[in-house]
């Protein structure tokens, strides 16, 4: 039996990451993978790096990491709504300014995907999709046949992604699975401040378990306040409802939220 912890979308939420890593340490996993987007949104971006490195987490690049490492002008989320862009810019500029050159360079050394073979079960881990680092795979806009096409194209049985910030799992039959592992950095627009990661167990078949992480979100809100991050971001951390970057949400995911 092989067991992996899969985390993603850290968004500088060092407090949720710390709590999740303690939780993972108790679960006797074979490895922990982070599917990218270490920075964004949250406070003190440099704090997540030692936590990930000391825990031996194997990290991939997300679009945010790719932007920070390459000195790009924005986060490559591709918003066009002026309000979304305003907050995305604010978040990116803050994160860029507060991420040390050493950490930016390290982000640039990370692979964009990882392939694993666990006793014949072939896995691909990437940030957005096997096609694009910033392609959104939402549950409500990913048809079964399209997901099979992605698996076929990648030549794998199990595909693990993040990027959207909301977890989901599709069992396509015949041992084929697509898993969006969720995000530790931001609650998932459901009115609860907890965040999520995934434990994947491969033992002949693949078993997916989503793990909720309750952490000291009020302390994170205080950190964000101290760093003068926008009240809208702090509201999301405290309430669990997304307040910004709403443009990319499909109808089903958007309608479930408050804003």
């Amino acid at each position, binding site marked *: 039996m092989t067991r992996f912890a899969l985390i993603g979308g850290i968004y500088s939420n060092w407090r949720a990451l710390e709590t999740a890593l303690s939780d993972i340490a108790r679960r006797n996993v074979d490895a922990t993978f982070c599917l990218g987007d270490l920075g964004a949104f949250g406070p003190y971006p440099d704090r997540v790096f030692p936590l990930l490195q000391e825990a031996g987490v194997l990290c991939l690049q997300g*679009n945010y990491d790719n932007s920070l490492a390459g000195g790009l002008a924005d986060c490559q989320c591709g918003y066009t709504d002026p309000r979304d862009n305003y907050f995305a810019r604010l978040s990116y500029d803050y994160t860029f300014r507060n991420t040390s050159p050493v950490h930016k360079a390290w982000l640039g050394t990370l692979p964009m995907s990882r392939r694993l073979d666990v006793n014949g079960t072939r896995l691909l881990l990437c940030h957005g999709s096997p096609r694009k680092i910033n392609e959104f795979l939402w549950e409500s806009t990913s048809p079964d*046949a399209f997901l099979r096409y992605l698996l076929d194209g990648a030549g794998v049985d199990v595909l693990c992604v993040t990027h959207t910030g909301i977890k989901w799992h599709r069992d396509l039959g015949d041992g084929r699975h697509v898993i969006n592992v969720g995000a530790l950095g931001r609650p998932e627009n459901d009115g609860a401040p907890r965040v999520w990661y995934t434990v994947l167990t491969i033992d002949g078949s693949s078993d997916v378990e989503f793990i909720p992480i309750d952490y000291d979100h009020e302390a994170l809100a205080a950190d964000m306040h101290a760093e003068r991050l926008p009240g809208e971001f702090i509201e999301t951390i405290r309430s669990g409802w997304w307040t910004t970057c709403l443009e990319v949400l499909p*109808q089903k995911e958007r309608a479930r939220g408050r804003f």
Partner: protein
Amino acid sequence: MDTVTSAAVELRHLDNLWIQVSGTRCNIECRHCFNSSGPRETSFGLMTLDAVSQAIAAAAARAVREIYFTGGEPFLHPQLLEMVACALTVAPTTVLTNGMLISDRIADTLAALATEARYSLEVRVSLDGYTEEMNDAIRGRGVFQLALAGAVRLARRNLLPLITIVRTWEDADERAVLAAFARLLSDAGCDRPRLKILPALPLGRELTRVAGLQQDACVTTAMLEGFDRDLLMCSNSRLVTDRGVWVCPLLVDQPDARLGTTLEDAASLYELQHQTCVACWRYGAICGNVSARIEGPDIAAAPEAR
């Protein structure tokens, strides 16, 4: 010099199936309409339920990612709701409408479909002004009130419409205009407005609406060097009509853009010969629901680990 040769783009994967379900028949006659649809326009006709079902099945077999119903005005088709229900069993589905025909009964059915389906149903309602005067100058008298009422009926059922707006204002006015749209919608009862802004395209009636419209040359091979071709509709989309399959929804007036009679024979290379192709190249992914430029490093060749 190949820099003056128009470029050719292949269909990488059929991400988007567009269905011109009502042809060019429309209950209104917008001054900027890119395919000159209108009440008397018959260059394309209504598709049959059979033809639409077959196109959906063929697209499903090709692992389509999204299905779009367009026209004309899709709600002029008496079997549209059946077709939408069929599409939703396969993929997320979008209807592009002027919103005027969305009655309470139709809104109820759409909301029920949206709730029951596994995939998202999006309804894109066109509005080109935040006042009756501004909108109706482009879309026709009486359109504003009916379109707004249709959008509100959807929003009240938690089927949040995407309000699609063609940019007909100056860049400097952008913020104020978008804020005015958001305010209008909130006040009317769409309290979570979703806006999609489209560029005005040098096509159809728009060519006569705006005198001296910029006439760009074709997309050249040099313009595609280092360019993410996924941003071009022709690399990921096809349009089915009652008269065959076209390369994209914007080129229905161009005979060379008709690629065949079925999706199977419309998977060929397309040469980007038209000004519209330049607009697609410039703005990227114009027709999709999210205007977002979904581009970035290609990860197909990423290094392997472990």
